């Protein structure tokens, strides 16, 4: 087990380096000059531009800039911003707790309700409740998240007045409930659909017949036998979804004015602050890689036949 984890962590290194390199190149090779952007619409002063470039190491060849960045990253240094010369890490430690909180709330929402609806529909396959869940999930999947956000902000925030339309205090969990529901809704629908298919497939398995024949109560059959065996595809989906949720938060945060990573990213994109963009995506990639490792370890918990030596 320990050796397996160590090997997986080692395998992550090339992927991590590759991903940071890719995003670094995407930010730096594509057109657009962040230093010139400091002057706004006015013509930039070439001498001053050269000084700023030299200070920030932007005059070096690209490969050297990347190596410097990677070296800094290993020491926990995400670089500094071009405008204001602030450490990127400071800005990220302000924004990430908000987004992670939002993401975790959305994740809990999708996990609990998605599994509930999925099991319900899978067990009652072909019944009215199954049809209801199927139609509901199809609807949720086809309505884009930003439309759902705009509509629910209007309906629950402005018209019904249940919540304030804009989040005023981004660290207040109560105010994040509606954004979290909107953020998690798409994944909820996918979790419900996956669970339903998986449950319906496993319901015909031999061990299910055995469990029924032994006279186990329905509740125990579903929760201990059926659900546990049906969870593997769902867990796989959830693993990749943690990263997707964090990225989806970018859109949701914009609608509800949550001061999280999304807002930081928008500002960075507008000012072409490459170091912030690369930093944010790097953290997302780390979250994604670790979540995938966690998923693989969970397989062994769910299915004892899977062992990691």
């Amino acid at each position, binding site marked *: 087990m320990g050796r397996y984890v160590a090997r997986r962590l080692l395998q992550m290194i090339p992927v991590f380096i590759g991903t940071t390199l890719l*995003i670094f190149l995407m930010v730096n090779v*594509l057109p657009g000059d962040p230093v010139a952007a400091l002057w706004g619409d006015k013509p930039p002063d070439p001498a001053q531009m050269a000084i700023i470039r030299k200070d920030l190491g932007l005059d070096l060849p690209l490969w050297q800039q990347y190596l410097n960045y990677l070296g800094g990253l290993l020491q926990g240094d995400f670089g500094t911003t071009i405008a204001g010369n602030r450490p990127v890490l400071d800005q990220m430690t302000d924004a990430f707790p908000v987004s992670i909180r939002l993401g975790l709330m959305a994740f809990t929402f999708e996990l609990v309700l998605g599994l509930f609806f999925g099991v319900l529909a899978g067990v009652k396959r072909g019944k009215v409740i199954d049809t209801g869940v199927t139609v509901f999930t*199809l609807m949720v999947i086809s309505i884009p998240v930003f439309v759902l956000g*705009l509509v629910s902000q209007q309906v629950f925030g402005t018209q019904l007045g249940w919540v304030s339309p804009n989040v005023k205090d981004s660290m207040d969990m109560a105010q994040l409930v509606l954004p979290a529901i909107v953020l998690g809704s798409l994944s909820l629908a996918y979790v419900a659909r996956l669970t339903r298919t998986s449950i319906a497939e496993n319901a015909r398995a031999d061990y299910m017949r055995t469990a029924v024949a032994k006279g186990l109560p329905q509740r125990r059959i579903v929760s201990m036998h059926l659900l546990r065996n049906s969870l593997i595809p769902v867990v796989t989906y959830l693993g990749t979804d943690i990263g997707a949720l964090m990225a989806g938060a970018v859109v949701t945060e914009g609608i509800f004015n949550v001061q999280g990573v999304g807002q930081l990213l928008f500002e960075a994109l507008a000012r072409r602050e490459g170091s912030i963009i690369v930093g944010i*995506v790097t953290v*997302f990639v780390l979250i994604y890689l670790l979540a995938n490792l966690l998923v693989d370890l969970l397989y062994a918990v769910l299915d004892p036949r899977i062992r990691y030596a």
Partner: protein
Amino acid sequence: MPENTLKKDKPTVEEPAVAVAEAGPAPDKPRSLAADAWADLCRKPLFLLSGLLILFLLLVSAFPGLFSSTDPTAGDLSKHFLTKPELSHVFQPDWFGYDNQGRSIYARVVYGTRVSILVGVGVTVLVTVVGGLMGMLAGYFGGIWDTLLSRITDVFFGIPFILGAMVVLNAFTERTVWTVIGALAFLGWTAIARVMRGAVITARHADYVLAAKALGAGTSRILFRHILPNAIAPVIVVATIQLGVYIVAESTLSYLGLGLGTNEVSWGGDIDTASDHIRNAPHILFFPAGMLSITVLAFIMLGDAVREALDPKLR
């Protein structure tokens, strides 16, 4: 609901598959998987409904002038500012009302179809070709090729899709449909590559590949004439489902102001405009958002139907 009506004439999944095999309509001539799947699809209301809807959308995007004779960019602020829809005026310019610049929402919804369909189809075609080739090479040649291509796939897969597209598109000041298609395809080919790789690996050691090799067939002939037809089914399923995802991605990017420019007519851009006026004129949000959702729904239902027809587990 449509999926459920399906289940009714197909009570268990295994039985009809046996029935088809035993009492197939052409017992003397065995049908190919594709023909079999097609016959299967034609009996499904889900497929017929989504297919008709998609044909209609393709028609609208190819010939928007047939459906609306109004110019979607011509506005008359003084006369039509945020006018409410007149739903009884079917197919008239004021049918869906007017937006904040006095432009006919009906005309804009009709002309906006082209962008969504073009992006959805364009990205899917690009992604299937690029991802398919990558997956085939990795799966067939194995060894160092597989390691290299799989790691490259991992790298691209790790970058969040919308976020990556935002970064790429932000660098372009003049964005057209093709820029958006390129950016989405650049980041989106990984899912197809992974599926294709898996399918090719299972097909690689089949007896018919060995037979083709023994007969002296070249690598490209083996790959494209023997392996590809047997590995394409899961790729088609993923591609169909992803098509809807790309349409949503385009509209999200246009909504964020990182997709098409404001002078292009697109549903995402119109939803962005509508979000400022949602309080006093919800109709300017409703129609583009509704069309967008219906389009995505059509492609998701198509994907579901295709998966049920092609999935060997359900046969």
